[in-house]
């Protein structure tokens, strides 16, 4: 029995009188791809914000590898191995692809002022390692040839892949992808498909994704959670969810 990587219980987020997330439960095991789906405005991104520390949840517990992370700050949670992407790609547009990859490794580098000024051996070694890792991941997502190009000059699909590569270079254990397929054409979506599966199988991380693209979701998910208006509606394997009458009602309305 694999231990739970992420265990979320009773996650609730209130903004004044508005309840955006109401008692959401999630479980993600190691090497799993889990999807969250639901009609628009269902509070899915808010869930992500709560998990990743951008919001402090009003109630609930979030356990990452048996450690409570609810209430921690965003960058602290990121350092614990949970990284996320955003609905709109957030790259450092004016910096090059390779620089984006290096910034992500900031805390693995020697940030000591004097070491940098005097270019100590340790400093240089860590810079080299970071460079190697960056190149490795750029190769994985097929972007190595664009290493010196400004991130803002890439095609949207390439930017998405760069964002994922940038997350991966931080050595996470859980990757949260917020609508990664939005704005991608079918070809790019297929590439994204394969990339996510590769991440699970070859790099042994788990992926939690929010998506609207049903073919993507049904095709690669090990488990699916359905959320409507911030409240959990159903969960199960793709087949179970596909045939769940409540889910069908939520998406298509009453007969």
């Amino acid at each position: 029995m694999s231990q739970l990587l992420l265990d979320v219980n009773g996650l609730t987020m209130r903004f004044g009188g508005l309840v955006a997330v109401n008692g959401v439960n999630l479980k993600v095991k190691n090497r799993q791809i889990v999807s969250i789906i639901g009609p628009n405005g269902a509070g899915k991104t808010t869930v992500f914000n709560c998990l990743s520390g951008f919001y402090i949840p009003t109630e609930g517990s979030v356990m990452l590898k048996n450690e409570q992370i609810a209430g921690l700050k965003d960058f602290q949670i990121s350092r614990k191995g949970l990284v996320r992407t955003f609905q709109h790609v957030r790259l450092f547009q004016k910096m090059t692809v390779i620089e984006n990859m290096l910034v992500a490794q900031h805390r693995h580098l020697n940030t000591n002022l004097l070491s940098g000024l005097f270019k100590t051996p340790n400093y240089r070694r860590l810079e080299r390692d970071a460079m190697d890792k960056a190149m490795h991941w750029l190769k994985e997502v097929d972007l190595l040839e664009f290493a010196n190009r400004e991130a803002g000059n890439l095609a949207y699909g390439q930017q998405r892949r760069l964002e994922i590569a940038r997350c991966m270079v931080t050595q996470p254990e859980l990757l949260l992808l917020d609508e990664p397929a939005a704005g991608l054409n079918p070809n790019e979506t297929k590439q994204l498909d394969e990339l996510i599966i590769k991440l699970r199988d070859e790099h042994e991380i788990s992926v939690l994704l929010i998506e609207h693209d049903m073919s993507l979701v049904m095709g690669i998910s090990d488990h699916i959670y359905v959320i409507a208006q911030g409240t959990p509606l159903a969960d199960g394997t793709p087949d179970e969810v596909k045939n769940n009458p409540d889910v069908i009602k939520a998406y298509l309305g009453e007969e």
Partner: protein
Amino acid sequence: MTTNKFYNAIFAAGITFILACLMIGVKLDTEGTTLAVKGATTEQWMWIFGGIGVVFLSQLFSSQIDSLFGKMPKPKLGALLPEEKKMATLKPWLLAALITVMLIWPFMVSRGSVDLATLTLIYIMLGLGLNIVVGLAGLLDLGFVAFYAVGAYTYALLSEYFGMSFWACLPISAGLAALFGFLLGFPVLRLRGDYLAIVTLGFGEIIRILLNNWTAVTGGPNGISGIAKPTLFGLEFTRRAKEEGAETFHQYFDLSYSSSYKVIFLYLIAVLLVIFVVYLINRLMRMPIGRAWEALREDEIACRSLGLNRTAIKLSAFTIGASTAGFAGAFFAARQGFISPESFIFIESAIILAIVVLGGMGSQVGVILAAIVMTILPELAREFSEYRMLLFGLLMVLMMRWRPEGLVPMKRPHLELKQQ
């Protein structure tokens, strides 16, 4: 169409008249204990009507004027420099030539020019320091003058009460200024842009008020005078040695006393400090911290999601910028021999900010150019000295409207991945 323009022009002229009629047209005069008003002189009224006329005409012919400006090419100062590849090989030679000129030049010109150059170098240092905070890290600091003051008073006090030499105090001044930067930055750096600006302004004022009122230590409004000048390995640059047994520069080298030696010596120290600061900043931009500053400026939320501690990163920029101001402050105190809170008013912060903004935020070359222009221009236009601040304010408004990216827009050194 033209009638519309005509009404616009009349309206604009009317506005100008309203603005000017009382504020310029009437002068307040205190006659004894009563307040009296005096009409402005005929000459002044000519100026007012001239101004109204200009506004009227410029509104009437606004479209023609716009197209005229549109046809004028925008000065691309960056294009004056040769292209990248050639620059890379030329650069070391250019730098060497520049440094040589800077070292030799003072021996060939008047004392006044060298003195002016030293003042310019101080502003260059301050501009580069604030550039780290505003240009590289994107934090708007309106109270930079506070760190300048800390550096100056640190040297002044250490020199007066403990007789410490300039060279010993230099790192201490920088360190103390950095400490203040840390203490100030720690609570306020998480504030939003314009709030941060006001809070730093407030801190700048608090420091000045404290310096002005803590008379026991800082001498209050009278400041501290008689600050020792820097020495060259113990050789003083004065006519007679201060203490028994100490030697002066001209005695040691068997020369007759000339005050130029002191001025040139100070100039050379300034050059040294500026070179150090420039080197430091160049290194920083190529280090992880420099990349982090840029990333933070670009997208703070992305940084947070990648595990970067934005407060620590902002704090580093703030602290390093502050320490640079500390350097400048110590040197300033040494050069002047006398400091008072009057030298550290808000306007100084505004001037340094203007240097950074006008030079092109982030661009070192731009900041240096802007500092030179800001310091030398008022000297060249002596007759206009009373209009100096007025034009300064006007310049800031105009630059923001027409060239907000500054004289030399920032060109970041990009990290290149060398293909194997």
